[in-house]
């Protein structure tokens, strides 16, 4: 499905790989403690301070400098709330603290997608079946063509437009994603089965809309419109940022996808292997990593989704060394590089294969002139 052919490991190597990563995981688990608790609470403090400051500044939203400063603070608050706190807490990364306020079952984020729905699609479906075509519904989110293994259809000519819309309305996209419209269309899922999911969407969406577009604007009286647009802008900024970071996690060139067949009866080592090959990192400064919720370390996150994300940068070197030991790629690059790679893919896959792939060789394997394998069925 990808370029070039996936690196092959022997069963012994898979087993050893599983052992290496399990040992690393155990070391991380054993070292969890007060520092991790303090860290996440410090992040919460910064986020809540930004939120209160943002909402406070917007009490004077008709005064342009206050509008700008308030919108910036609120955007940052929403980004941190959703990424370093929400995404990670709802992954169960802090469940070991036995603190209901930081528990995956109880936490809700400042986002229209209800945590409970998202956890099912994300923690279970996406993290268990990462990059398995036909099973991981995060490949293209049911609307985009993000993998060559998805069959082309004239509908996909709109790929760039759909991607743009998804970016702008990302929180709503994430919310609707849990409805599994694609499965409803194909009849794999019945409308009646989505009753709970829809009820939660309705409740959560209503509360979020009420807060951002009715209550806070109303509190500012005649500045209603200015406050509402500031809140909308903050939501938009968060949408664009989250979309960009998340798309850079699985869709840059070189990230592998898998077939259901390939992944039948997977061992622990093979599961780790798929997680590593199916993810890509973004390099950057420590502050950048925090603002991405450490999803800039998507590879480490996919190996250890339930370990506090602040640990990912700490073990990135070791994970990379393990990749090298087994000859596995460690896909990483700066944000511009990864984004460009994703954008190119969105445009490329909008077109039928014949526009970008060389004519198919025997049995789906295409070898280009320079001898590199292009397509492997």
């Amino acid at each position: 499905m990808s370029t070039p052919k996936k690196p092959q490991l022997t069963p012994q190597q898979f087993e050893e790989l599983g052992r290496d990563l399990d040992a690393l995981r155990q070391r991380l688990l054993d070292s969890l403690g007060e520092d991790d608790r303090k860290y996440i609470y410090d992040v919460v403090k910064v986020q809540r301070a930004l939120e209160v400051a943002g909402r406070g500044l917007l009490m004077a939203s008709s005064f342009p400098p206050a509008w700008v400063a308030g919108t910036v603070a609120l955007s940052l608050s929403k980004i941190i709330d959703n990424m370093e706190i929400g995404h990670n807490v709802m992954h169960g990364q802090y469940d070991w603290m036995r603190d209901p306020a930081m528990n995956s079952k109880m936490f809700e984020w400042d986002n229209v997608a209800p945590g409970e729905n998202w956890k099912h699609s994300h923690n279970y479906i996406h993290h268990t079946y990462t990059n398995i075509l036909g099973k991981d519904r995060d490949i293209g989110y049911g609307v985009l063509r993000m993998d060559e293994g998805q069959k082309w259809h004239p509908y996909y000519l709109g790929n760039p437009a759909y991607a743009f819309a998804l970016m702008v309305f990302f929180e709503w996209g994430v919310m609707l994603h849990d409805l599994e419209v694609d499965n409803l269309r194909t009849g794999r899922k019945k409308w009646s089965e989505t009753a709970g999911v829809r009820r939660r969407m309705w409740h959560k969406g209503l509360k979020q809309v009420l807060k951002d577009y009715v209550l806070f604007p109303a509190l500012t009286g005649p500045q209603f419109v200015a406050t509402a647009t500031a809140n909308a802008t903050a939501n938009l900024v968060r949408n664009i940022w989250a979309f960009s970071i998340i798309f850079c996690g699985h869709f840059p060139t070189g990230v592998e996808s898998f077939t259901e067949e390939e992944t039948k009866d997977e061992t622990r080592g093979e599961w780790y292997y798929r997680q590593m090959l199916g993810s890509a990192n973004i390099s950057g400064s420590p502050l950048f990593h925090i603002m991405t919720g450490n999803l800039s370390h998507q590879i480490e996150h996919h190996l250890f989704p339930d370990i506090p994300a602040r640990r990912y940068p700490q073990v990135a070197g070791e994970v990379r060394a393990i990749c090298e030991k087994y000859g596995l790629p460690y896909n990483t690059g700066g944000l511009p590089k990864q984004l460009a790679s994703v954008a190119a893919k969105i445009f490329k896959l909008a077109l039928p294969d014949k526009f970008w792939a060389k004519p198919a060789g025997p049995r789906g394997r295409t070898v280009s002139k320079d001898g590199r394998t292009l397509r492997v069925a």
Partner: protein
Amino acid sequence: MTAQMDRKRRIPGLRLLEALATPHSIDRYLELVHPMLTIRELRGEVTSVHRSTRDSVTLTIRPTRRWRGFTAGQFIRVGVLIDGVRHTRCYSPATSQHSADGRFELTVKAHDNGRVSRWLHANARPGLVLQLAPAEGEFTLPAARPEKVLLISGGSGITPVISMLRTLCAEGHTGEVVFLHYAYTEADVPYLAQLRELAGAHPNVRLLLAYTDVEGGDLHGFFTEEHLRAAAPWFADADTYLCGPPGLMAGAREVFTALGAAHRLRTEDFAPAPITVDAEDATGEITFGRSGTSAANTGRTLLEQAEAAGLKPEYGCRMGICFTCTSVKTSGCTRDVRNGELSTDPDSEIQICVSVPVGDVELDI
């Protein structure tokens, strides 16, 4: 529910504040200003600490405004943060249930290998904030106070019964009360001065101290029928409340049963049933508390055993990564199949898809 409603009435605009703070509760904002400012969450601040015996520590606790008091003999689940992890243990307030300012005292005995009790003994200081839950427990005096009451305790088991004694004294109760306490030596008696003072001030209260390791007490050695007759010859017509170490509890139950007075004996156990630590042990019974079913342990994961018992717990990955299956283990010991780690704490959350029971386990599903 009613507590929540009257709270809403008393804090104007709470509903609006909550709609503005959504999806987070306002406590999540207030606690960042000060941990004791929470409106919904129950917490307590330690306001004073003293050590009356070598191995115990007494904490005075000022609860947050949500606190609704306790009944003498009840216990409170107390959450203590140790190295980032919240550990919850039960402690029985030792003060009278009638307190003007809502403060109460906990006396904790430091166990040699005890995680929470040793930590509190070593680290509790004024300003420490503990997580609290509303008081619970049935080990209480009847509302119509009995004519004659016998209170028996040993070691740290003194707390619920001294609370009963202090409550009765505070109520001006005139019926006969005998307080019989077992300790190694006089130096091991918590609240010694307070007990003597109460007995001195209330002619209806008689204090008897029994020392197991030294002479010099009112009684000597372990609980016997003679002790019982010496302390309260009228025991057959009285209500007896007993709390202490397993040896004392077993001894007293035996004596009361032999004398045909077992129905007058009320007890409270502090020590959990001993936990099997043979990690490969596939014996015992799995109780699914909420659905009221149970089954013999087959050694498979709790998720599989629950399903075999006809339950349908939520699950996702079945490999320990998605946390969909997380459930509360009410009691017992489980082993994580991934790394062999044991979970022995009661009331803790476990991922049932990767946990196998070790001996008896109760799950809240």
